[in-house]
C-alpha cells in the first residue's frame, strides 16, 4: 500500500488518478461508420453528445476499485465474470508490481470487470459508435480517416511487436476532442462489443445464416482501407465477455444532460 501511495505521489498526474481520469466533453454529430450493416443502408448515424475519459483507466485506478470491491479481486472473482488471466500481471491480488505499473493502462480485464468499474463511477462503457467516432480524429481534425498518412501511423503501431512494458497512459498528444490514447496504446472494450457479429462467425458452425441469425446477415466493412477499425472489430468480435488479454483495457463514458 505504502509503495503504491509513493508511486502515486511521484506522478505528475497524481491528482487525476485519485479521482480517475478527467472527463472530456465530446460534442455530438453526424458520423458515417466504417462498418457496413445490411440494415443500415449507409445512413450516417447521429451521435449524441457524451463525456469520455481522457485516457484509459490505469492499474492504480483499477486497484483502488478492487480494494473497495473485493469481489473483483483476481482470487475471488466469479469465474463466469473473468477468465484465469484476469489481473494476472499484478504482483498479488491487492498489489501492483514495483515498476511504474501504476500509471500504465490496466489490461487483463474482462468486459464484466470493466463494466463494473464504470458503473461504480456512475458511468458506463462507451458504445462502439462513440468509440469509433472519437477514434476517427487526429490531433487537429475530428475526422482524419481519409488521410493516408494517419492510416499509416496507426498501421505502424499494429506492426510494432507488443514486447516490452506498456507506456504510461496519457502521454500521447490529445486528439481534436482532447482525448488521448485512442490508438497506439491498448485495445479497449465497448459496452456493445458483443453486437459486433462478423460473418466469419459462421465458419465455426457451418450453419446456414438463418440457423445462426434471426434477421438479416452480419456486418461487413464499408471502408476496407480503415485498418484501425477493421482490426478492432476483428478483435472485439472474437471475444467473450469474460475474456481478458494482455493488450485489452478500457475507459468509461457517460451521458451528459
Amino acid at each position, binding site marked *: 500500500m505504502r509503495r503504491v501511495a509513493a508511486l502515486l505521489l511521484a506522478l505528475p498526474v497524481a491528482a487525476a488518478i485519485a479521482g480517475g481520469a478527467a472527463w472530456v466533453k465530446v460534442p455530438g454529430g453526424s458520423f458515417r461508420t466504417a462498418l457496413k*450493416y445490411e*440494415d*443500415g443502408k449507409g445512413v450516417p448515424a447521429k451521435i449524441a453528445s457524451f463525456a469520455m475519459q481522457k485516457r484509459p483507466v490505469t492499474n492504480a485506478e483499477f486497484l483502488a476499485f478492487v480494494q473497495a470491491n473485493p469481489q473483483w479481486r483476481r482470487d475471488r*472473482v*466469479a*469465474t*463466469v*465474470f473473468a477468465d484465469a488471466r484476469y489481473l494476472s500481471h499484478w504482483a498479488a491480488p491487492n498489489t501492483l508490481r514495483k515498476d511504474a505499473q501504476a500509471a500504465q493502462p490496466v489490461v487483463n480485464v474482462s*468486459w*464484466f470487470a470493466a*463494466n463494473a468499474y464504470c458503473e461504480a463511477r456512475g458511468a458506463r462503457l462507451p458504445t462502439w459508435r462513440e468509440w469509433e467516432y472519437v477514434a476517427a480524429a487526429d490531433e487537429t481534425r475530428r475526422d482524419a480517416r481519409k488521410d493516408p498518412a494517419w492510416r499509416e501511423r496507426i498501421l505502424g503501431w499494429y506492426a510494432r511487436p507488443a514486447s516490452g512494458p506498456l507506456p504510461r497512459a496519457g502521454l500521447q498528444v490529445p486528439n481534436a476532442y482532447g482525448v488521448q490514447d485512442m490508438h497506439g496504446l491498448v485495445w479497449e472494450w465497448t*459496452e*456493445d462489443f*458483443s*453486437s*459486433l*457479429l462478423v460473418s466469419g*462467425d459462421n465458419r465455426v*458452425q457451418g*450453419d446456414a445464416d*438463418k*440457423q*445462426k*441469425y*434471426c*434477421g*438479416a*446477415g*452480419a*456486418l461487413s466493412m464499408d471502408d476496407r482501407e480503415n485498418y484501425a477499425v477493421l482490426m478492432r472489430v476483428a478483435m472485439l*468480435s472474437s471475444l*467473450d*465477455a*469474460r475474456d481478458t488479454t494482455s493488450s485489452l483495457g478500457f475507459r468509461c463514458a457517460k451521458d451528459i444532460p
Partner: protein
Amino acid sequence: MKRHPTRLLRPTLACLLLVVASAFAAPAVAPLPRDSVYQLPLPLTDQHGRTMDWRQHRGQPQVVAMFYTSCKYVCPLIVDSGKAVEHALAPAEQAKLGILLISMDPKRDTPAALMAVAKQRRLDPAHWSLASPRADDVRSVAGVLGVRYRQLADGEFNHTTALLLLDRDGRIVARTEKVGSVVAPEFIAAVHRVLK
C-alpha cells in the same frame, strides 16, 4: 393464577418460533460456485407478470436460451428445441427440469407478449418460464450465456443462438448451437445425467 399459563406459554412460543425459523433455514444455502451463472443478479419478469431473480431456479436444473417473441426464424426453433428435450425425458424427469427462455427484447416482450407465445405453443407453465430481464441487464445475461446480438434498424435482432443446460447450482454443463426439433444426442444425454 392468571399469569401462570402465560409464563408457561412463553418458552413454548419461543421454542416454536425457533423450530419454525430453523425449518426455513434448514436447507442451509451453500454459497454459489464461482462458475455459476447465478453469480449475475438478474431480476426476470415472466409470462405471469411475476418478477423474481433467476436464482429462484437454483436447485432445479434448467435448459436456458435467449429469444424474443417477434422473431420469425430461429426463435420458434428454440421453442422446438425445448419441446424436443421434454419429449426425450421420462415423465419423472420432466417434472425435475425447468425450461427458461430469456428475452433479448424486454421493451416489447411484456408478460402479455410472453404469455401469448406460451399459449400458442402450449407450453406447460409448470416447467416453462418465458421471461424478460431489465433492459440494462440484457447485455450482461447474454455475456454469461455466450450469446451475441445486435438490434437492427427495424427492431429485429441479429443474434447467435445457444441452448444451454444449467445444473442445480447454475453451472453450464452442456451447450449446443444447433436448434430445432432434433436436439444433439450429447445434449440430451447431459440432461439425463444432470437430472439423476
